[in-house]
């Protein structure tokens, strides 16, 4: 079982992801520079957070042209697992691997806080160790996390059950007051139709031990490991 962490110029959560896999799962991940054209046989690819290419044009807009992204697309088309966290999620949106787009937070500020997330699905490779409607606490840190998609596609997304995490209160109610960035329907994370590509704004790799405020990010990494153990 092999995890790969892709580093773009400006990625800054790549080592956190590395540590999450190494210390959280006891596996040695491989690092893949964005200019490379080989995923080295990885089963799960992590696109980490950060500010790829400085995010000057739009978040993730330039990173999607990195040579490795063609391989990530092919990996996803074969059913391989891809998880994009924060900037990684933004890159997945810009690449068209997930639908929708990110806009600046409605408060226009960079938001850095631990939020409650309601788990909408636990039948995925990424969430099988979670309970449906479980509330987990994971930190967010972004300025462009305001998920947008046109109304028709939003309905499709909801009808297809593609929303995986929603910002909510401690009881799991997704009210507007608990929406940190203005995302439509309090969306914090979505999957593609096939369920093998996940994008999420919260950082599970920053919630791997209680000392850091929460260890519930581990549930996501553990889920991926459990899934790969089952299918491999």
């Amino acid at each position, binding site marked *: 079982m092999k995890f790969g962490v892709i580093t773009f110029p400006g990625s800054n959560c790549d080592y956190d992801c590395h540590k999450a896999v190494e210390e959280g799962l006891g596996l040695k991940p491989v690092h893949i520079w964005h200019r490379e054209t080989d995923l080295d046989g990885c089963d799960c690819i992590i696109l980490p957070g950060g500010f790829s290419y400085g995010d000057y*044009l*739009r978040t993730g*807009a*330039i990173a999607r*042209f990195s040579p490795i992204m063609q391989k990530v697309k092919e990996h996803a088309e074969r059913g391989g697992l891809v998880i994009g966290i924060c900037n990684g999620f933004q890159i997945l*949106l*810009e690449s068209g691997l997930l*639908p*929708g*787009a990110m*806009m*600046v*937070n*409605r*408060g*226009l500020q960079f938001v850095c806080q631990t939020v409650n997330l309601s788990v909408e699905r636990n039948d995925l490779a990424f969430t099988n160790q979670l309970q449906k409607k479980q509330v987990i606490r994971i930190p967010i840190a972004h300025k462009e996390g*305001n998920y*947008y*998609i*046109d109304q028709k596609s939003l309905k499709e997304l909801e009808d297809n059950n593609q929303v995986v995490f929603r910002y909510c209160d401690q009881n799991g109610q997704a009210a507007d007051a608990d929406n940190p960035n*203005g995302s439509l329907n309090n969306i914090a994370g979505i999957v593609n139709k096939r369920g093998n590509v996940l994008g999420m704004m919260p950082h599970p790799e920053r919630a791997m031990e209680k000392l850091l405020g929460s260890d519930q990010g581990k549930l996501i990494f553990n889920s991926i490991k459990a899934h790969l153990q089952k299918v491999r």
Partner: protein
Amino acid sequence: MLTAEIRVTLRDGVLDPQGTTLNRSLENIGYKGLKDVRMGKLIQLTLDLSDRAQAQKLVEELCQKVLTNPVIEQYQFTIGESK
């Protein structure tokens, strides 16, 4: 030399957090008569090309593939001569 001026705006119906905030701020400092504010960006390119058709094609491709995100943005551009 040719230049291109690309006007990128949010699609109709897409909420504009920056525009909304600016609208509120302008009202807060006393300006009346505003109904809505929407913000976009202007991208100015100086092209190393002299053929207009070629310039048109390049800028169109840049807009479609890189400079704008069709999910939230729309664009218009004009090709001109550099002064």
